């Protein structure tokens, strides 16, 4: 029974992180949200008996995707609506 509750908790966490990364205006926090989505998704693959997929998701999701997104928001803006000036961001 506890396993089922754990699975439901994980599903809720996954959806919450996905919604957070869509809703939040700061793009850096959105990227961190995709990082959490990728971490929990990897645990899902692991529970569904697919360790090779979990391994690839771990390597690509947590390291490479974060790095290329951060390089992008460094070269563009960090604010989604582009209201805060790039030099003045204090978050």
């Amino acid at each position, binding site marked *: *029974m506890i*396993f*089922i509750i754990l*699975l*439901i908790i994980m*599903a809720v966490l*996954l*959806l919450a992180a*996905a*919604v957070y*990364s*869509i809703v939040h205006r700061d*793009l850096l926090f*959105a*990227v961190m949200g*995709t990082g959490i*989505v*990728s971490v929990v*998704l990897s645990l*899902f*693959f692991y529970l*569904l*008996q*697919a*360790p*090779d*997929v979990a391994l*690839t*998701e771990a390597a*690509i999701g947590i390291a*490479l*995707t974060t790095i*290329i*997104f951060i*390089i*992008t*928001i460094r*070269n*563009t*803006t960090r604010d*989604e*609506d*582009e209201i805060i000036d790039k030099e003045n961001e204090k978050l």
Partner: protein
Amino acid sequence: MQEEFNEIFIKYHEIITIGVYGTAIGLILIGLYAVLMKKNLVKIVIGLSIMDAGIHLLFVGIGYIQNGTAPIFSPGYENAGERMVDPVPQALVLTAIIIGFAITAVALSLIIRLYKHHHTAKIDQIKSLKW
């Protein structure tokens, strides 16, 4: 001890199936919302990658069977052929993750180019067709 956990997995198989499929479809819908409604290009790419994640979860969930084990032959598991989960969706998902990463990288590099030309990354402010 493994048997007790396997019993749990068999007993609540429907709940696990519904949970996995529901999570996958929820992720796809969230990503679709972002792709359709958001104005910022980086946000759209984030939505695409979340949609990707949902589709991968759906595929792996299709291949799962009750009381399954990983489709890898290793010492102690030479005769576990009929217990193994379907390896074909896993191979497909493995390829799809890599290709999704490549698509994300290309899209982000295009966004950087676009930003350097237009000084904005919002699609409703980019009005000229050529750049």
